[in-house]
């Protein structure tokens, strides 16, 4: 029998997860925005024709959930990408700049981390006029802190390496060292940080939309579906709340696991496990 080692297994699993996520995203994108339902089919419990049931307007909840997921994933990807790039800038600036810059950045990080994320996202999103833009800025502005700290530590450690000191003595400028010695080392940290930030971003998007400060009601985001479902749950309609909610949890768990696997593969300290 052919033996598959653990590393190969993890890589295969990771690729498989990515394919699932991309498939969900593509499926959601293909669904037209106005998949109108008919009142004839309103409020139907899950059946073969409508696996997730239908909502009060007769729209198929399965389609709406996946459409919502793909909207959430767009928001999540964009927000965590902006956030991660910002984190790298800030982290490198803190570690490579003067002591005063470092102290200032640490102070800002402490402040942003000290305020509960959800409240901050609501405030920023509301101030920016809600909608996709406000939500994106709100999420991006609150999620960079921990990655920035991680990168700051990494750069500080790298800068104390002998080969960086040697490079300086060989006449290389600070900028050259940053581009050739430091930044390539940060690649895995950046990438894993980005993927692990993604589920947070999606959950925040959903919760803020649920509370009514995020996406507009006509957009089929997961948060909107859950928010609408609350109106009917008293009437015994459990499926609009439970099934999309479960899907959200499953997908978030999947992405989280994907991030962990990526870390196992890319992080030099656990790559040999």
């Amino acid at each position, binding site marked *: 029998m052919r033996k598959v080692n653990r590393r190969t297994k993890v890589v295969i699993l990771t690729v498989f997860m990515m394919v699932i996520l991309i498939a969900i995203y593509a499926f959601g994108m293909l669904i037209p925005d106005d998949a109108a339902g008919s009142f004839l089919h309103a409020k139907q419990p899950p059946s073969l024709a409508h696996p997730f049931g239908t909502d009060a307007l007769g729209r198929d909840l399965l389609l709406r959930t996946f459409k919502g997921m793909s909207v959430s994933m767009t928001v999540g990807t964009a927000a965590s990408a902006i956030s991660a790039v910002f984190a790298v800038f800030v982290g490198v600036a803190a570690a490579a700049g003067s002591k005063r810059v470092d102290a200032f950045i640490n102070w800002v990080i402490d402040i942003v981390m000290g305020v509960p994320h959800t409240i901050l996202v609501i405030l920023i999103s509301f101030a920016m006029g809600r909608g996709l833009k406000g939500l994106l800025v709100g999420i991006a502005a609150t999620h960079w802190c921990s990655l920035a700290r991680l990168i700051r530590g990494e750069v500080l450690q790298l800068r104390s*390496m*002998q*080969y960086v000191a*040697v*490079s300086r*003595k*060989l*006449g*290389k400028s600070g900028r050259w060292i940053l581009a050739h010695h430091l930044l390539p*080392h940060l690649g895995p940290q950046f990438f894993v940080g980005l993927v692990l930030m993604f589920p947070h971003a999606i959950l925040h998007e959903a919760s803020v939309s649920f509370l009514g400060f995020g996406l507009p009601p006509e957009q089929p985001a997961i948060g909107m579906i859950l928010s609408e479902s609350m109106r009917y749950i008293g009437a015994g309609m459990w499926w609009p709340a439970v099934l999309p909610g479960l899907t959200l949890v499953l997908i978030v768990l999947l992405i989280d696991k994907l991030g962990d696997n990526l870390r196992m593969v890319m992080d030099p300290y656990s790559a040999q496990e």
Partner: protein
Amino acid sequence: MALEAKNVFFRYGRKQPWILEDCTLKIDKGERLAVSAPSGYGKTTLALLLAGYLKPAKGEILLDDKPLPTKGICPVQLIFQHPEKAINPRWRLRRVLEESGKLREDMLDAFGIERAWLDRFPRELSGGELQRFCVARALMSGADYLICDEISTMLDVITQAQIWNVVLAEAEKHNMGIIAVTHNQHLAARIAARTIDLSENFK
């Protein structure tokens, strides 16, 4: 033309004891000096100070009566004891050598560096092989002074002899000054015209 340490004091942190106290030494261009002492007497610290990696707390390091230049390729190059720390683990070795300028084929031959090694990563070579790269990198930078901090301690005697022969020949050719930090009395006597013992002179 000389590299000198003038009344140098150094300690790691304000509450630490002095590692070096009133340390003075001078080496002319083309001279070869060995520094020896038991562990913990500041050999490596002295090497770091002379090459400008550390700043003395009091006193000064002078190159031709001027402080060491802080920009450009430093004319005083230090070779470390552990080559695996002095090489970026993510770089192929060709890049490591090219960091100090253009590859010199004669240098590769002199050190017995096989061409296939150039396209490998540092972790694929042994310590002795890596140390040849570190020495070659320092020599190719065109330094006037070479400080060798126990560069051959972890090598077998044949490799030690090979590396030192190349270093000494190169030093002869370009009239370089050499400071060899070593525990090995015989090696010190073989390569250097004069030896100073940190435990006697400065404590």
